[in-house]
């Protein structure tokens, strides 16, 4: 029996070593595919390399990463910014990115939190879940946040290679030879979308029936706890509802209720809430590629307007809290 167990354990250990090597190789290669998954690997790689040492960080979903251009922060404020918007994720997964940022980088002093009407909706399935694969081995933060979605097992975070089982596409993409277009890479987390409003966007909008977005109590609690913690740590948070095309604003029946909730929470914790859904640029389809996303032209216009307002907010804040 002893000999059998020694042989078996040796085999398993050898297998684990081999699996770890392959795991590392696949993860390493996959992380280089900055052209995939809305370029999320650019941001994750910067987070894990500790490269995000900026004056401002921008949190949010796709409405953050395609609409706030960090390059304009330098020009306008003379300060640096990094856009940490994560495509298609609600506040729950945005918060995971926040935690990972804190773990590997200096804590931010100024946060711009881009909100949308779906931020506090709970999801069952995790969108773009393969973006977490290269980083999730032994990562307890990712385990904690991913385990709230269906079909997720803790063992996938602790056994090397297991999470790649059956993912032929991911393994194929990791080893695929591609030349990545440097113009198609997120810069400081941002990539303006050189797209125009199309007839398809019109059709989608026309077919959209009114609906309500269910707001999850757990998400509200997470959101409020986050604001409270930022308040306690004296981090400046600016809550923003970025522009939406005016023709698309009427479909969500509880829109006012959600925006009122954001405004109330901002007031409660003493943070500004800036709602840009009434800007004149929201009247022009030429600034959007769909009803909730600005194209590159619209994003440049919006960022400039936002930074003007931010300057004012800074001035107000400085007057309220004069430095010693």
């Amino acid at each position: 029996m002893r000999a059998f167990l020694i042989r078996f354990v040796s085999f398993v250990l050898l297998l684990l070593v081999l699996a770890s090597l392959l795991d590392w190789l696949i993860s390493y290669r996959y992380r280089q595919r900055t052209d995939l998954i809305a370029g999320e690997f650019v941001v994750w790689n910067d987070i894990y390399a500790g490269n995000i040492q900026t004056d401002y960080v921008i949190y949010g979903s796709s409405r953050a990463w395609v609409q706030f251009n960090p390059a304009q922060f330098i020009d306008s404020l003379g300060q640096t910014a990094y856009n940490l918007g994560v495509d298609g994720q609600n506040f729950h997964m945005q918060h995971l990115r926040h935690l990972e940022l804190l773990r590997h980088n200096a804590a931010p002093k100024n946060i711009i939190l881009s909100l949308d009407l779906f931020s506090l909706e709970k999801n069952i399935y995790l969108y773009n879940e393969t973006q977490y694969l290269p980083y999730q081995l032994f990562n307890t933060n990712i385990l904690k946040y991913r385990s709230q979605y269906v079909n997720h097992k803790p063992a996938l975070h602790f056994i090397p290679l297991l999470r790649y089982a059956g993912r032929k596409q991911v393994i194929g993409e990791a080893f695929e030879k591609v030349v990545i277009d440097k113009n198609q890479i997120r810069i400081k987390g941002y990539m303006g979308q050189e797209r125009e409003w199309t007839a398809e966007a019109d059709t989608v909008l026309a077919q959209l029936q009114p609906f309500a977005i269910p707001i999850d109590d757990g998400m509200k609690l997470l959101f409020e706890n986050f604001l409270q913690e930022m308040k306690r740590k004296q981090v400046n948070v600016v809550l923003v509802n970025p522009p939406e095309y005016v023709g698309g604003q009427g479909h969500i029946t509880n829109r006012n209720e959600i925006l009122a909730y954001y405004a109330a929470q901002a007031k409660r914790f003493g943070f500004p809430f800036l709602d840009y859904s009434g800007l004149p640029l929201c009247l022009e389809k030429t600034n959007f590629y769909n009803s909730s996303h600005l194209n590159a032209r619209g994003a440049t216009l919006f960022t400039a307007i936002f930074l003007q307002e931010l300057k004012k907010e800074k001035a107000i804040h400085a007057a309220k809290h004069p430095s010693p």
Partner: protein
Amino acid sequence: MYFHSIDFAIFLPLVFLLYWFGCKQAIRPQNILIVVASYVFYGWWDWRFLGLILFSTAVDYFVAQFIDRSSNKKQQKIWLWVSLTTNLGLLGVFKYFNFFIANFTQAFRLMGYDFQPTSLEIILPVGISFYTFQTLSYTIDVYRGKLKATNNWFAFSAYVSFFPQLVAGPIERATHLLPQFLNAREFKAEKAVDGLRQILWGLVKKIVIADNCAEYANQIFNNSADYSGSTLLLGSVFFAFQIYGDFSGYSDIAIGVSRLFGFDLMRNFAYPYFSRDIAEFWRRWHISLSTWFRDYLYIPLGGSRGSKLSAFRNTVIIFLVSGFWHGANWTFIVWGAFHALLFIPLLFSGQHRSHLNNPADGKRLPDLKTLLQMILTFSLVSLTWVFFRASSLDQAWQILTTIFSFSQFFPLQLLPFDLLLTLLVFIILEWIGRTAPHPLAHLAIGWPRPLRITLYMVLVLLLVYFAGTPQEFIYFQF
């Protein structure tokens, strides 16, 4: 709990260590542990049906004792009928109730009587057909005087619920397995290592072959009206490999796991797709079920002795019952009937036992005749699988008529080269290992240890790479 799940990968080593180190090699604690582990294993799916296993165990445990104690043949027969009625009654209620109701209703409608019977929302307990047959074999063997009734409750409970083969066989005979629970088990490293090899090969069959074939078989069968005859034929071949990989893979894992605990289970598959005729196929496919029917149904009916008519009748019965055992659907009955039609000519021409040896015995490659026989048998078997896989007789008919139509000559609408290549390698490996209980018992055994270990590592990595969309074991539904 699935054999190819992380849960089982944790469960198995735990039970293994407790079994050999926590029970001090004593029979009773080991048996108790097996019963507890088996109930946990089964309860992982649905704990509500544990009562059913317990009930079935209790009925046959006591019935067998009553039979054993009684010297009156009539009384013994009554007790046997108690067991038969209880076990087959449970099977009838849980598996066949709605089928019979639906068919009676239809039959009455044809006669002009229309009524709305109550159909029940019955969930089929996993593995009920397997453990029911296993307990029945015990009572029947006690009745026949082949076996003494045991008064060891835990040994008998362990025999009924033994987790490796509880839900999908092999269907063990009490004469073979029960004595193993009554006697001390000895750990033999060689046996355990071979068990691990068989588990590995079973996982390869399930994960690499069955689950990947399932993706295409499901796509083709679920949209059969959209595909040409050639593609549907390919779909039936994929299903043939899916069901083989799935079921024989499960059996391999069950046998391998049992060996880790010092038990020997009967062989359930012997490379059936290398069969040279249908009779040989049935000696190599689901052996534990076909021999069960042979011993407890075919021979009591008279077997092939007597007139040709009675031999014909007995053969038809056994194939129809075998089909019906698989599920409460006419598709399974027709599947059984087709196999009977293919078997009967061999029976009457006396050729049903003409292939008792291994194909191309002692040779590396088959001769042309053997090869053609194997291809023909495989083709026939694959076509009959259409009934097995189709959701209804109408769909089976649609598929078969399309296969035998002009569209058979149309180009394939699906051609997954990687899967076909994988199947080719799999067939070659099975061919090389066809004289052994499983290919890994033959392959690489003479190789130097580092090379052998490398092969096993490669197989494990293939499991990771090829892991398809996880599919349930097909035979769980039976």
